[in-house]
């Protein structure tokens, strides 16, 4: 089990910068997600951690020992790092059975034969794939292949476990099942785990901390709920949360901002150009309802009403802007086309500067 230190990590492919000055420390036994859209550098970071790629600038250390260093050119090869890596495509060896796939690593590490048998049997039980041991990869379903890929990497008891979007090839139900599985495994085995994903729900539910990345740069590194409630910038606010957060910009909607300024008056230090509020903090009131203090109202028209089972998602629009509201109980009587008012409490409004950074110093009155 190991602490991972990433220092000043930069990776360039020609002129293109895949990772830009990344500094990150992952504590022992943590489960950290690297979250971001495609091309944000998360997979490249993972590959540098594994040793399959090398940094252009910066270094990577496990428990204080240098694994890769751009300055000295030092590089510990993947097979000597004590890591487990699960690829997005699983990369099971097609000409070997499940048993042989798991056995291969043990053989490479010169583990004695009797011990190997026991280890493999245990891992098969742990991942609930005992009946599959003699099958070939093409005879397995996606979920089964993924368990085998996991088994193959865990059986070597790695100090660091690296997972590259392991759930993205699974259907929705299986994904939920495997998420629980990963959590169970992590609590039992306690490896330091780095998990790459573009699915914010996965990152939120699995991690002790989430590192949000965009265009190679770290946007925020914090526990999930902090990311959700106190997003460091507008990108993080928009990326995390489903349905996505509602955003208003001063330059696009100067008239609406007059109302916002009135509600937020005096409580914000400095200038701000963006506000955002989560759908679950919104309510819908009829046009006639009287204005209460410290509540921001927005006139809008109902454009869709979607019952999802446990709740309703209502879409409102104003000019060319669209807003989503999440309601737990039956909304006020309305049909598509009705003119209503969206209502949000001042304390639930997130405020961002011109540079899209969260303004945290607020007077809460």
């Amino acid at each position, binding site marked *: 089990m190991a602490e991972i230190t990433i220092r000043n990590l930069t990776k360039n492919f020609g002129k293109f910068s895949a990772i830009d000055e990344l500094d990150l420390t992952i504590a022992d036994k943590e489960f950290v997600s690297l979250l971001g859209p495609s091309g944000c550098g998360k997979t490249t970071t993972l590959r540098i951690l594994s040793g399959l790629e090398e940094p252009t600038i910066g270094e990577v250390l496990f428990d204080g020992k240098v694994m890769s260093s751009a300055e000295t050119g030092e590089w510990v*090869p993947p*097979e000597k790092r004590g890591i487990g*890596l699960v690829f997005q495509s699983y990369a099971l060896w097609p000409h070997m059975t499940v048993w042989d796939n798991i056995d291969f690593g043990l053989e*490479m590490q010169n583990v004695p034969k009797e011990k190997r048998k026991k280890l493999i049997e245990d891992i098969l039980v742990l991942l609930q794939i005992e009946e599959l041991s003699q099958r070939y990869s093409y005879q397995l379903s996606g979920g089964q292949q993924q368990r085998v890929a996991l088994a193959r990497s865990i059986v070597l008891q790695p100090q660091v476990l690296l997972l590259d979007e392991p759930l993205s090839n699974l259907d929705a139900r299986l994904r939920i099942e495997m998420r629980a599985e990963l959590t169970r495994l992590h609590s039992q085995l306690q490896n330091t785990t780095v998990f790459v994903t573009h699915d914010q729900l996965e990152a939120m539910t699995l991690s002790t901390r989430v590192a949000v990345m965009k265009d190679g740069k770290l946007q925020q590194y914090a526990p999930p709920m902090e990311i959700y409630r106190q997003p460091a910038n507008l990108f993080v606010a928009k990326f995390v949360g489903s349905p996505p957060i509602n955003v208003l910009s001063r330059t696009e909607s100067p008239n609406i901002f007059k109302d916002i300024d009135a509600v937020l008056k005096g409580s914000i230090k400095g200038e701000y150009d963006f506000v955002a509020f989560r759908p679950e903090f919104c309510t819908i009131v009829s046009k006639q309802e009287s204005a209460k203090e410290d509540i921001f109202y927005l006139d809008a028209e109902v454009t869709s009403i979607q019952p999802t089972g446990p709740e309703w998602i209502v879409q409102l629009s104003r000019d060319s802007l669209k807003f989503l509201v999440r309601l737990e109980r039956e909304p006020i009587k309305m049909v598509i086309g009705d003119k209503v008012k969206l209502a949000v409490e001042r304390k639930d409004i997130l405020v961002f500067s011109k540079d899209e950074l969260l303004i945290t110093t607020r007077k809460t009155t």
Partner: protein
Amino acid sequence: MYRSNYSQTGRLALRARHRLTRLKYNPTPILTAVIVILLVYLVVGPLLSILVEGFVVHSRDAARIGLAKGSFTTHYLKRIFVSPVSKVFFWNPLVRTLITSLFIVVGAVGLGFILAWLLVRSDCPGKNFFSKVLVLSYVAPSWTFALAWTTIFKNRRVAGSLGLLESLGFVPPDWIAYGGFPIVVTLVLGYFPLAFLLFGGALQTVDAQLEESAMVVGAPKSIILRRIVLPMLLPALMSSGLLILSRSLGSFGTPYILGSPTDYQVLATSLHGALNRGEQGVAGILTVFIVLVGVAAVSIDIFFVKEARRFVTISGKGGKKTMVQLGKLKPVAFIFVLFIFLASVVLPLMALFLSTITHRVGVFTKDNFTLQYWLAKSISSLGGRGGVFRDPTILKAALNSLYVAITSALIAGVFGTFIGYVTTKYQSTKMGSFLKQISFIPWLVPTIGFGAAYLSLFAVRRGPIPSLYGSVSLIILAMAIKYLPFSARAGTSAMIQLGPEPEESAMISGATWMKSFRRIVVPVLKKTLAVGIVLPFVMGMKELTLVIFLVSPGFEVLTTQVLRYIDYGFTPMANAVTVVIILVISAVYLVFQKVTGTSLVEGLSSS
């Protein structure tokens, strides 16, 4: 940014040391360097060598030209293009090459298209059977048809046994027996399977839904054919046309057999003549010319295929095909297809075989049959030589053929697989495309030019590399490199399919590069390797054009032996040896298909 602990030189030294460490864990760069050196010398080297030969004074011409041996000269260039003999050496053969190639391309592509359409898109009876057997002719050497033609249509211009028509009392005129007409007909029959396969493939992938969408908006069948189907077939049309053009440019055996009696020269035979006369300078220029035209043709084709990528349907399912109902034309279509089958597969083989067991072909009386050409110890009409199974020359040639074909196949297969492996590692980089292109060149170059180029490079000692003139190694080497593109491409696509991750997984699990290569890469590539070996073997067994310059009196192979028999006028013997070659290849083909379940035919004619 943080402070460094090392001095400038300290850092450089550390980096150098660590760089070497990487090679220990992953020797791919070393492997690549070796491959690059080999490829440059063995692929580009010969071509450069023969290019130089065309512009450098050779010792026998030094006095005549008035320049020292080895100095630069345009003498040969002038000799080819503007001298009094240029008509004989170059212009007439060029015109004849162009005319025959034009007719061959039009004929083969047209025939291929008609057959493909009939057998894929209409309800012609016997579709499945004909689809399989029509490509069989491609398994035989390309000059099989020429031999069969001679057997049937020869006249007294060529001494020796009587032709079929002659035995029946008809003497074919020269223009039917030899020259442009039979060359065109035989090569059309020989090459149409290529067009047939390409069009067949294209017709099958043209998504039925594309046509159905047009039907739904009201387009009549004729418009659909003209505006939807035909344009989508354009790439197959261009592809097959240009490939057949390149093949016919480099083809030697057929024009030699059918052209020599009436001195009908094409560029390939002119080149052969030049080298036989020892005119290396002239041969050099001719080769360069042939190579340039051939490479240009294939490059245009590749360009068009790239363009045509946009025609590839993105959707997943192929969809059911709507068959064209032939109705009253059904019997006509059937007879047509049957006729082509008979003419391209049955008749040639029968003619060949019959001529080997009869005194006079076509006469079916009991006393006319003989097994002498196969079993006799000594045949008087052949100057005392023995039959195929008794003549030690043939046995020796057969062993030589096998030896050469197997060895070059193994080299091509293994080398090609390694090239495929390395190319994939450098996939989207300059090194990757360099490797791809250079390993593809042998395929682009017309075979006759390739053979001449190899002779040129290895005829004399160059630095540490000895002369291979007249040796078996030269033949093996030339063949191995000529067929390299097949194995390299097979290796590349197999590696791309596998992906880098199985190897990376193995390394993460603790395997060294060597262990990972042996236990993960090689087992997965086994099937590809097999094809990469068997395919060159089959091609090597029937190769004539490449080896014609490289064999020596002491070392003949079956195919060149056939040519010797033609030169002596011993047609039945030539045919018998050809039959043997065809049988050996067919046996290998069938066994391979049984054992691995893959068809070699697609590979043989693949572009």
